[in-house]
């Protein structure tokens, strides 16, 4: 059962950029962008580089502040400066897993820190939660004693997922995280993500440019170009009747 629970309304962000050839001119404006998210579904945001899809991800995760726009959660407007709301409900998985881990701290401590910053659990409850998270992504509790350089790329990606899920969020943003993985690793991570979505009714926002992956994983799709949404809708509708040029171009890359 899908219920609408997050509504994004007229989000805008303006970057004052130096003029370069092949970049979009002096001021890059993203938006206004509006869409809704339902519980338990995967929504994909697709576009070329510079179309604004990564910016939307960062705005939603509160890594940056938008210039205007509202975010409504279950009917209540959310203040953009309320970091604890964003930390607990909307989490981000980065593209390069190894670089997103602090190399000087054991990963058990890195997983513990979101809990320390955001919740009031005591020591033992925190350790339990860390062990549970590690087991959920397929690692052993002993791995909490290791430093990040000991892990391979796939394991680092799993730790990234564990860190995103340790606060029990409702929305997870996957920012091109599956692109640099090898096919067999990617298959394992995709299986893990599907399983977690079914268990915990997570909503995924998938940002990617690999159309085959998007076709496989997502329920709805949003296509962006030049900072604007040019087409959105469910996967079957959009793929059957693409109306915009960009959509047609993206679909063409499926048939080679």
């Amino acid at each position, binding site marked *: 059962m899908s219920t609408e629970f997050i509504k994004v309304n007229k989000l805008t962000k303006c970057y004052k950029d130096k003029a*370069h*050839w*092949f970049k979009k001119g002096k001021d890059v404006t993203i938006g206004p962008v509006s869409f809704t998210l339902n519980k338990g579904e995967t929504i994909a945001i697709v576009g*070329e*580089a510079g179309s604004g899809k990564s910016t939307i991800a960062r705005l939603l995760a509160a890594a940056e502040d938008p210039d205007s726009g509202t975010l409504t959660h279950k009917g209540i407007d959310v203040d953009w400066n309320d970091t604890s709301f964003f930390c607990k409900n909307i989490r981000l998985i980065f593209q390069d897993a190894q670089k997103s881990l602090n190399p000087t701290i054991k990963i058990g401590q890195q997983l513990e820190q979101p809990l320390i910053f955001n919740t009031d659990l005591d020591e033992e409850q925190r350790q339990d939660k860390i062990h549970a998270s590690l087991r959920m992504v397929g690692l052993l509790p002993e791995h909490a004693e290791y430093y990040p350089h000991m892990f*391979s*790329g*796939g*394991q680092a990606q799993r730790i990234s997922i564990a860190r995103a899920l340790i606060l029990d969020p409702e929305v997870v943003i996957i920012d091109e995280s599956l692109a640099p993985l*090898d*096919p*067999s*690793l*990617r*298959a*394992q991570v*995709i*299986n893990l993500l*599907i*399983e977690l979505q079914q268990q915990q009714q997570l909503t995924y926002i998938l940002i990617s*440019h*690999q*159309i*085959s*992956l998007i*076709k*496989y*994983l*997502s*329920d709805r799709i949003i296509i962006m170009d030049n900072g604007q949404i040019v087409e959105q809708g469910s*996967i*079957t509708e959009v*793929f059957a009747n693409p109306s915009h040029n960009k959509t047609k*171009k*993206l679909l*063409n*890359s*499926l048939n*080679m």
Partner: protein
Amino acid sequence: MRLLDIRNLNIELVTNDSRIKAVESANFSMKMAEVSGLIGESGSGKSLVAKALVGMLNNRWQVTADRLHFMGQDLNRMSDVKRRKVISDNISMIYQEPRSCLDPTTNIFSQLEESLPDYEFSGWFGVRKELRVKKCIRLLHKVGIKEHQKVFNSYPHMLSEGICQKIMIAMAIAKEPKLLIADEPTTALESSTSLQVIKLLRSLNQLKDMGVIFITHDLFSITSWADSINVMYCGQLIESGLTKNIINSPKHPYTKALFDSEPDFNSQDVNNKQKLYALKGTIPTLQHLPIGCRLGPRCPNAQKACVKMPEQQKVKGQYFRCHYPLTQNWKKA
């Protein structure tokens, strides 16, 4: 005459403690003007094979082969100077992240001009310069860049990755090589630009009779246009053969697993959120290779005989290394 004939290629890394075999007994051959795909994940040694062929590996790597023939000439027996000349005249290579492979401090025109061969131009001093400019313009038009004047004056950081990759290809075909080695050229690009690059490579192969070795870890980009496919795992070439044979009936479990883990190959259903077939475990590192068949610990069909290294067998033009190959014909749904 075959374009490339390599037998029993071994690449070892000599460290202070031990010798690590990065590539072990690889047999690789290509006909003239053929498109050959080299598929493998990270750690499989596919980039090493390409670099060994071009001679780019430094002294810590030891490359040995029983036969290393390029267009009939034995590269092993030549002197260094002659081998470098043969390779530089006939083989070109393009790389993964094109923007970082171009010189960031000079504009594109001087970089393109450097890659033109000397002997083509004759005439007085001023005439030669004009001929070079014309040739550069022609090269850019051939790869699909229309606004050559703007590109000439720009620096690499101003251009997008797709344009930079096309410039790299232009530089690579300046000498009209017989073989182009493409080392993961589309991994850093988006889908629409990578489609353009692949179409460009395909047209160059057909129009100019240029052989292409396309190295990638993404099956999908290569199976529609490659003539033959070679699959590498952990330093071994575990299967090779014609594309249609491998797609229809892969003999090695790893090849089948690769096909199964791509979302598009299984079915035409949209939003099929079922689990993909994935081999359990991870790729072993070079220091901790399993004895016997490299896929042993992860293979679903592994049995007792798999602790011995399988020999290469040939069935109907397909070479593979497996004790228990898959026998049924697995057709694409």
